[in-house]
């Protein structure tokens, strides 16, 4: 009496467990995609001129020193 009851119960328990794991995996994947998207959006912004200007000035300073 117990055995036939026990088996299907265990079986369906493990499948729903697998489903849960799959669901968690999918959700984590979705969060990962969003996270990268959020980060990449800033990466893809045009770099403000200021950055290159500062670097150019520093570089000129360096080569001026070297030339002396």
């Amino acid at each position, binding site marked *: 009496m117990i055995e036939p009851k026990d088996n299907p119960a265990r079986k369906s328990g493990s499948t729903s467990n697998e489903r849960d794991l799959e669901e968690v995996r999918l*959700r984590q994947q979705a969060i990962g995609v969003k996270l990268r*998207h*959020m980060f990449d959006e800033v990466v893809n*912004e045009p770099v403000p001129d200021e950055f290159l200007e500062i670097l150019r000035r520093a570089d000129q300073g360096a080569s001026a020193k070297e030339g002396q």
Partner: protein
Amino acid sequence: MTTTTPAARPSSSDDNAFKAELVTLIPHLRAFARTLTGDPTAADDLAQEAMMKAWDARASYQMGTNMKAWTFMILRNQFYSEKRRSWRQTQLDQEAAERTLIAVDDPEAPVALDELRQALKSLPEEQREALILVGAGGFAYEEAAEICQCAVGTVKSRVSRARKALQATLERGGYARDGQSAGDAMRSILADADRLSGAGRK
């Protein structure tokens, strides 16, 4: 590119190679800075300081090693030393946070991005930065450990805890949002991720 030059003094061609590589990293430094400060203006200040620190320290950098990880470490150190000095008092104001990391040109994105950003904010700092480095910045655990100057195992456990906490927060809707029920945050993220990865694959 560099031909044999005397190793004693950094040559101009080394400087040029260094500079060229540093320039390609600016967008990444800006993105990382924004996740740390949560404010676009403060983030650009931080990224500029980090860029200059890297430039000034170029003699100590070995070409061919991981410059991205190296500059991220400089930026992170800069952030924490400044934060200790002055930023501790500065409350991250809500308005600045709203402007941060929003996809303005994508009408569908803001809702899910906002949810995610709020959930990220609720994470402990060290978990957030570990998750950003590995989950968004594309760093290996080993590289993230180098950047954060901690053990690889520590990074792994931080990332894992961050992922679990993030999912739990998004599903429970642990932050108040008018009209949005708990499952909605996760649902919109699932839908959005589907759309994004579909578009990305093509």
